[in-house]
């Protein structure tokens, strides 16, 4: 019996239940309010609908909270209960194996597909189904009970003097506030989970080894010196900015100062297309076109240097994937981030300053270089900072085109690895949440988060100051 209950489709049931509570609460409140208004001659403060909303709100709120709690917590609770009942032999398993065993159990019980001959597994699955069945039935009962209590409580309030509308509106405002607070919750979630996992990592690997070690070999040798990753990230971001900063800046200058309205209306959206292309597409482009191009140029340079007698062997590494290829493509991706924000700040420079310079007989380029750019400098710096932060955090291009080898090399045709590449490499495939290998990804993530946060905060602050100055 309980086993069958274990396969209840909770998603649909909960939705139906919540809808039922909502409509029932609304009708109860509304009908009661209407009955009052028919029998008593006094005027109602709020219209009957609001009494309906009020009752529905009281029915729905506790039910909704319970349903959310169920969705998030049911699985961990059922697993915990099951683990406690499992025979001792299971507890001797490594934790990762136990987790994947439980994964298999819950997958099978969700789909009812196991017809193999492992009797232990069958028994465990049945027990799991019983446990989650009782959990489900308890949840449904609790939700129904709380909804009924909520509705009854609210219904007792319905009276001509009751200010239902105010109550509903402050309830709605609370709900809106909670939605806005999700943003904070997300940040807290990010910071908490990164810190939590990082602390677990640093309890196994010293912080100094991580931050200052120069050998990274997390996959095989458990060496966690992240300096090569920091170097690779820095190097590729630098190459990207070498492309994006001049191109983005000059494009912004040309568009805001030289181009006619018509040119601007065509070119600006085209530049923004660059920002809309998914990064995985850039990664493919880098792999397909740019990396082979970089390689053949590097090979050509090698050959030429040897030919003219400046070198005895190859000077450049000329790898099939390279820092230069990843950096170039990343630079192209970042161009619109530089150009559109710079364009905004350049346009925000008051026209009177331009007029003043022109009236002095300055040429356009003199006006731009000596008057507009100095005035727009803070905003431009901010846009560059944001672009750097974007380049540091970019993942797919480097995953596909930068390489996996952690090393420190100034040769741009060699393959380097970055923080984001390693996070992906460490966390794809089977992951065990206890090994330092997996945890190191979170430590890297923490570094990435903190660095980009600094860049973003500074940039946003500068932009805000700048806006205030000219608005």
């Amino acid at each position, binding site marked *: 019996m309980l086993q069958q209950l274990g396969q209840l489709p909770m998603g649909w049931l909960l939705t139906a239940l919540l809808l039922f509570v909502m409509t029932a609460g609304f009708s109860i409140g509304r009908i009661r309010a209407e009955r009052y208004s028919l029998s008593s001659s006094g005027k109602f403060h709020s219209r009957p609908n609001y009494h309906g909303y009020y009752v529905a709100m009281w029915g729905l709120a506790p039910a909704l909270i319970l349903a959310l709690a169920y969705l998030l917590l049911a699985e961990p609770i059922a697993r915990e209960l099951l683990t406690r009942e499992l025979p001792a032999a299971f507890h001797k398993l490594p934790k990762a194996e136990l987790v994947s065993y439980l994964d298999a159990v819950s997958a099978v019980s969700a789909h009812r597909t196991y017809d193999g001959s492992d009797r232990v597994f069958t028994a465990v699955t049945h027990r799991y189904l019983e446990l989650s069945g009782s959990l489900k039935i308890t949840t449904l009962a609790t939700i129904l009970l709380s909804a009924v209590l909520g509705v009854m409580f609210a219904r007792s309030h319905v009276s001509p003097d009751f200010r239902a509308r105010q109550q509903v509106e402050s309830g709605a405002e609370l709900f809106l506030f909670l939605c806005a607070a999700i*943003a904070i919750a997300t940040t807290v979630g990010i910071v908490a989970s990164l810190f939590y996992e990082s602390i677990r990592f640093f309890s196994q690997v010293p912080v100094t080894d991580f931050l200052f070690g120069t050998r990274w070999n997390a996959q095989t040798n458990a060496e966690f010196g992240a300096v090569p990753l920091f170097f690779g990230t820095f190097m590729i971001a630098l190459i990207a900015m070498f492309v994006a900063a001049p191109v983005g800046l*000059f494009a912004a200058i040309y568009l805001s100062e*030289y181009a006619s309205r018509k040119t601007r209306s065509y070119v600006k959206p085209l530049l923004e297309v660059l920002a809309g*292309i*998914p*990064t995985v597409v850039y990664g493919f482009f880098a792999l397909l*076109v740019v990396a082979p191009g970089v390689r053949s140029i590097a090979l050509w340079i090698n050959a030429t240097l040897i030919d003219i007698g400046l070198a005895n062997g190859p000077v450049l590494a000329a790898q099939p994937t390279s820092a230069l290829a990843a950096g170039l493509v990343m630079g192209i991706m970042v161009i619109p981030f530089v150009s559109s924000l710079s364009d905004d700040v350049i346009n925000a420079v008051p026209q009177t300053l331009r007029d003043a310079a022109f009236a002095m007989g300055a040429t356009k380029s003199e006006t731009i270089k000596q008057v507009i750019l100095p005035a727009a400098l803070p905003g431009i710096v901010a846009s560059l900072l944001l672009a750097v932060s974007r380049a540091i955090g970019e*993942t797919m291009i480097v995953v596909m085109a930068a390489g996996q080898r952690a090393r420190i090399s100034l040769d741009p045709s060699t393959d380097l690895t970055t923080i984001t590449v390693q996070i992906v490499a460490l966390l794809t495939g089977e992951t065990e949440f206890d090994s330092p290998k997996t945890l190191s990804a979170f430590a890297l993530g923490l570094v990435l988060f903190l660095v980009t946060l600094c860049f973003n905060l500074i940039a946003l602050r500068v932009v805000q100051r700048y806006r205030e100055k000219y608005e």
Partner: protein
Amino acid sequence: MSKMPDSSLITPKALKHLKKRRAADARFRLYGIAAIVFALSALTLLVIAIGTRAYSATTQYVFQAEIMLDADLVAPEGETSEAEITRNIEGFYTLVRDKLFAEFPEASQSQAARQDLSELVNRLAVLSLARRVADNPSLIGKSLEVRVPLSDDLDLYLKGGSPKDVTVRVGSAGTIETDVEGKARISSTSGLSKVTSTRSLLEEGKAMGSVLLAGGKAVARIDSLSPDAAELTLLTGTFEQLANAPLVAHIIPLPEAERPISDQQIAWAIALKQAGNARQVLHTSLVTHTDSTYPELAGTLAAIVGSLLTMMVTACVAIPMGIFAAVYLEEFAPRNRLTNLIEVNINNLAAVPSIVFGLLGASLLLGTFALPRSAPIVGGLVLALLILPVVIIASRASLRSVPPSIRSGALAVGASRMQAVFHHVLPLAAPGMFTGAILGMARALGETAPLLLIGMVAFVAEVPNSATDEATALPVLIYSWASNAERAWEPMTAAAIVILLSLLVIMNVVVVFLRRRFERRW
């Protein structure tokens, strides 16, 4: 230059200086144009590089033949239930292979040759034929025209991809002297000298690759070549066929050892094409098949459905949340430290690298809450958090563009603040909010990195049914295809990218349309 008397400025020195300034101005303008040309040509290069490769994936070479669906092979011992027929790939494959053997009797001589010939069609390629028969068992015992995709390497060769070949028209063979079995000698006209010169040009005199001579349904390899004579080894067909047809030489510069397909296989492919048995057809399996380890069988269907499920979850969470949050912040929030903190937070979250959201999902949703790995629900939630700031920022801008007079007007007739917002401001701000939401969804649709971390990179061969099934997403599929080594994945990846980009273009077109339609100036 104008002449301007009476001015202290107009000294020759000043005029020279002015010339310099003018030149500097022109240079500066040129830098700007160069920057824009650079950015736009990068964009063009990207579009062309991907477009041309994707174009070659729009068609596919299939082996097409009339095949008698022998009941003994297809449904042995009365196994006619749907599942059994579908599972009986071996039987269907035997049918197709036998057809190939009948076409090329020379392959039956050795085990190796039989193996080579069977490689023309992948074993799993008959799967869709098996499904078709299983759906309609009355076909058993009848003759049916079937199409099965050729192996990816042959497909690539026939489309002129790799190994590259150059064809030269040789004309008629002239005289063919057959001496040993399967060997022959031709002495021919001007045609052969053309082949010789082209070959030495292509191979830079090193003569490592092969030259195949095709005529009618027969193909022979040229063993030794001089401008006026050539010695041939027959690969398929007969010398009579060769003698009676105009000859075409296929020069393949890449040595046989360095390519995945042998001369013999190329010969068969050419013969099949000549006979009309290898046909270039529209590559529909690209959108009707799920992922496969063989490029000729792989399709994007599962990934597209996975992406749609993920997007549904994202939309259900991010759009209402984002809009409500924007309404609160713009219309109700008191100016205090808490709301200030929320504001700074939202702006910051918009610039947090997407991979960090993936870490959040991996640790919190998969670890703490034990939600299923690789499921669209987790992916959707992570992406929802990722685009929430985008939606909030766009919605706030849209709310801000509604003039305060609308609010005052509503309040003045006795509406509460909540009523003023929901009855008057929101409807006016709705188009702007909607465009913001679509732009956010477009960003989520192209996002890859966070999905990798929550396991959506798994190989998924079945179309997911619900948001809790194992699934992958289109950009992730692109990533995994791009990481495959075989050349044939390249056009497939490009084609998948084109599908993704067209979805994004559609979303953006909707945005542009909405903006045009509902743009309002106050």
